[in-house]
């Protein structure tokens, strides 16, 4: 039942925020923050209690389950289940939701109620995606994410918001269609073979597929997820959407939407089609390395600071793609660490960059400089997250990237060595960004207020979590271990068990 609550709390919050009287914006903000806080507390309680593992059909290491019939005639069930992987991602969702709501305190002043409704709606849908183990239910939540995000970008975004929102919508919608086709294909093939028509994840897991069919169905899922993950060459929606979205929207996009894509790969694309995935792994890993380096070079080229941060996401998510397809548990654990650490560090960068450009009225780095003296706390936070994003040990990002590359090295040493070049390229863009904003002469004579109380609290929270992930990643690795070991895309054993 707690799983239903995890989705219901933001929904109730959205309802309350929506009906809060006009002009009482404080109440609306309060409700949103309360909803996220309650949900975060629920998640952390689950995390700390670390419930015993349930064994469900189809394997896995689940902590909790909720299963009711929904559309029985088509074999569709309202089936939710939570394992370590979902747990940490839901914790991230609620944490970032809280941060996004707090960051919007001063940022969003128009259509406040509708904004918060969208924020909570988005969170509910994302949590649903992380919990659903019925593929139809999963697809429903997946589509539910699209609308609030479209509104968030299109209504509260920057100067080119409509272009960005439209581009985002078309990319995701096209990819969802591919996923729907694959999903139905799998449903019918499984139904015809066994006589049981079901969308249940556990049941569909062992479906026997001919290599050709398996590859096509896998590709449908893969494209859908990889577009959300924004891997090169399917990343082009990302820079526009991230740059044009309001701060909270960028936080949601970078922190959650990209993670949803990665989650889809880990949960569905690889385990449902192990043989096809094994065959496809070299291509996927190639895309991962390409994303890492191509994104880093593009990030360095940008003059718009927000766009720079957006491209760094392409680079970092390349590590996730690499980790998912490297075929070892260590790499997969690394991928999950990157997901969490990137979610926090990049969101924090978006909040900082948003706060900065709101104060000086431009995102052009050419007009910044010397802001350390004016805003030391803001600059210090920017420094911390720039360092985290260049993979400095002591921050969570390093742990993730290191584990991924360690896993990749075992499979292909040259590929890992090429990916390790990103240590240099990441240093280049991160330091460039930080120094462009905070070092050098303050040639335009900016005098800006430093971080406000709320902003300072947000940064304190986010810095603590990143450092905590960096020096004691055990908290995450221990709770996700069993889930990831059972989901392990162990490509060699998967191939042999199929034959």
């Amino acid at each position: 039942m707690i799983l239903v609550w995890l989705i219901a709390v933001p929904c109730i919050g959205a309802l309350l925020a929506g009906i809060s009287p006009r002009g009482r914006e404080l109440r609306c903000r309060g409700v949103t923050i309360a909803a996220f806080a309650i949900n975060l507390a629920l998640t952390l309680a689950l995390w700390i209690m670390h419930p015993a593992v349930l064994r469900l059909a189809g394997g896995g290491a689940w902590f909790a389950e909720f299963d009711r019939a929904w559309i029985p005639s088509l074999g569709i069930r309202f089936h939710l289940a939570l394992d370590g992987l979902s747990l940490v991602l839901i914790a991230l969702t609620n944490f970032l939701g809280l941060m996004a709501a707090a960051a919007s305190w001063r940022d969003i002043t128009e259509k406040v109620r509708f904004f918060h409704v969208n924020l909570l709606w988005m969170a509910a849908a994302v949590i649903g995606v992380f919990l659903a183990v019925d593929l139809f239910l999963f697809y429903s939540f997946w589509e539910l994410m699209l609308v609030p995000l479209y509104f968030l970008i299109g209504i509260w975004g920057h100067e080119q918001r409509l272009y960005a929102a439209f581009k985002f919508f078309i990319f995701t919608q096209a990819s969802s269609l591919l996923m729907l086709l694959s999903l139905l294909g799998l449903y019918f093939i499984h139904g015809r073979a066994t006589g049981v028509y079901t969308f249940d994840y556990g049941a569909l897991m062992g479906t026997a597929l001919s290599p050709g069919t398996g590859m096509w169905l896998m590709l449908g899922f893969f494209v859908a997820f990889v577009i959300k993950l924004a891997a090169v060459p399917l990343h082009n929606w990302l820079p526009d959407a991230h740059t044009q979205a309001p701060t909270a929207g960028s936080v949601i996009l970078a922190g959650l939407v990209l993670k949803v894509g990665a989650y889809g790969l880990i949960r569905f694309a690889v385990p449902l089609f192990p043989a096809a995935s094994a065959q496809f792994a070299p291509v996927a890993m190639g895309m991962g390395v390409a994303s890492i380096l191509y994104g880093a070079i593009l990030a360095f080229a940008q003059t718009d600071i927000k766009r720079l941060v957006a491209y760094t996401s392409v680079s970092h998510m390349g590590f996730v793609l690499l980790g998912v397809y490297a075929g070892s548990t260590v790499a997969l654990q690394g991928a999950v660490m990157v997901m969490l650490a990137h979610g926090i560090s990049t969101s924090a960068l978006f909040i900082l960059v948003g706060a900065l450009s709101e104060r000086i009225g431009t995102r052009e780095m050419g007009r910044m400089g010397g802001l350390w003296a004016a805003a030391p706390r803001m600059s210090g936070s920017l420094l911390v997250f720039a360092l985290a994003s260049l993979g400095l040990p002591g921050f969570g990002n390093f742990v993730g990237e290191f584990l991924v590359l360690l896993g990749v090295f075992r499979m292909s040493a040259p590929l890992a060595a090429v990916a390790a070049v990103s240590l240099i390229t990441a240093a280049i863009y991160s330091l460039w960004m930080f120094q462009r904003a905070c070092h050098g002469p303050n040639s335009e004579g900016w005098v800006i207020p430093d971080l406000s109380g709320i902003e300072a609290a947000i940064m304190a929270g986010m810095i603590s979590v990143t450092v905590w992930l960096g020096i004691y990643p055990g908290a995450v690795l221990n709770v996700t271990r069993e889930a990831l070991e059972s989901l392990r895309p162990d490509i060699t054993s998967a191939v042999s068990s199929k034959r």
Partner: protein
Amino acid sequence: MLSLLWLIPLLPLAGFLSIVLGGGRMRGSMVALIAVGVVGLSAAMAAAVAIRFIYLPPAGNSFTQTLWTWIPATGFMPEISLRLDALSLVMVTVITFVAFLILLYSAEFMGGDEGYARFFAWMDLFVASMLVLVLADNFLLLYLGWEGVGMCSFLLIGFWYRDSANARAARKAFIVTRIGDAAFVVALFLIFTHLGTLTIQEAAARASREWPVGSGLAVAAAALMLAAAVGKSAQLPLQTWLPDAMAGPTPVSALIHAATMVTAGVYLIARANAFFTLAPFVQWLVAVIGAVTLLLAAFAALVQCDIKRVLAYSTMSQVGYMFLALGVGAWSAAIFHFMVHAFFKSLLFLGAGAVIMALHEEHDIFAMGGLRRALPGTFWAFLIGAASLAALPVVTAGFYSKDLILLCDWTSKSGSVWLWAAGLAGAFLTAMYAFRLVFIVFFGELRTKPGRKPGFRMGAALAVLAFFSLSAGFIQIPPDIVNFSPLSELLETSLPRLSAVSVGTQTEALLQAVAGLAGLAGIFFAWFFFRHPALVERLVLTPLGSAFRRLWLEGWCFDRAYDALFVRPYIRLAEINKDDCIDLLNRTLARACESMHYLLIGTQNGRVRQYAAAVTLGAIVIIALMVLL
């Protein structure tokens, strides 16, 4: 006592945290008290640990303390654990002690700077990272310290951030060393994948057991670590960042870019000596890189005009000596020179800092001169430092450490007369540029009237360092003088002995005499050129002379080459692709849809005549198709 080992790096870290969290509200004197105090406590702890370690050695001559499992991943469990053995003991003692003196000096030197608290916060963080680096029991934790010191170096080079040149120097230092760091990471992957552990001792033992000498894996691992060391220690070909790093405040140059961080590469190679022993070719490369760097840097130091740049090139050159020692297997000799160098080079930097402060931020040595009378304390300190650097025989510490390296080059089984000759030529050049500095800055006529003189805290630091620059050599005296070598006896509990061909006492004495003479000759030439400036001028005005002068002034023009080969192409590549050529495809698709849209809209124009014409045309086409097909 040993179980309190973790406090040694933790104390400076705590200092950093308390300054960062409370620095805005603290008074300057409070900040200095905390920052200097924690490092002082750390040094005291280190001293206590050292005494305990030397008089009551733990079992196996090492002590390991595991704090927690850092990354509990599947099949990969690096720990946060510290290891104290003779090597780390020497490093820790020298680092905390020198850092304490430099921080004490800084408390006065940095007085009145707007970033006073920021300076001390980062210095403390640096000390903590450096201690983690040398105390780490596994390569991953070592890498944490390694990157931590790099980050602090970046922050402190760019400390006076308002000047874009300083910011550029900071960035350059970090990025250039990161090239080595990337190699280091790959080395870690390789070691873990093939040896199954990152614990240094365990990995070294397994490598020695499982890898034959000269095997591909051993060569690769050693070469990658060499790349890392070369970056951090500013050796060829990644040396270009060090001269620019002098943009930081002088105490930073003393601590980070002379005494401690730049020797991290030396420490790494000494620590991982097993891998280098397994890869004789790479070890030979270490020696060659050291020899070439020490010569190139010494030539560059001869012509610099900025007092700190002379010292920067000198550091590069002296670290080259350490590499030369490592390359012939004289592990303890390298660490001995590290220790002595830490004393005399920080003394030189701090002396230079006192001069720079007295002359109101003047760095040009030709604007100095005649300061012997005006700043007598500084003069003596600097003179002692320079004498030690020039390896003035018998009385200075530098003589003993450099002499040992030269001797090892000669006697080591992997040594050669060429390496020895390079070291000897370097000794001559070193003495020459060191005393060129002394003569130009402190002798002759007074050019600029000095202002603020060093006070008690700066003076104390200079005095203590001067004392050690003279006396630190006495813990390792060559056997032909007095047989007294406690340092190498201590170090040989954790580092292999040099496998040397034995030479007679006479040869040894002869080699010492030659080395001593080389230094004296250098001092003589420095004096000669100082007394005959016209001669220097004529030399510089010859075409060859001016060409070399320019070449050396720019540090052999590496910067220019790298700029053309790597920096500008990368920037150009980024600029060309700023708008992301892949997006072009999407935009083209979108534009095609749009133009199609307008094309079709154009047909719907409400003109009946055109509609009729279209219908007729369509009918004709269809009929034609039916008839033809």
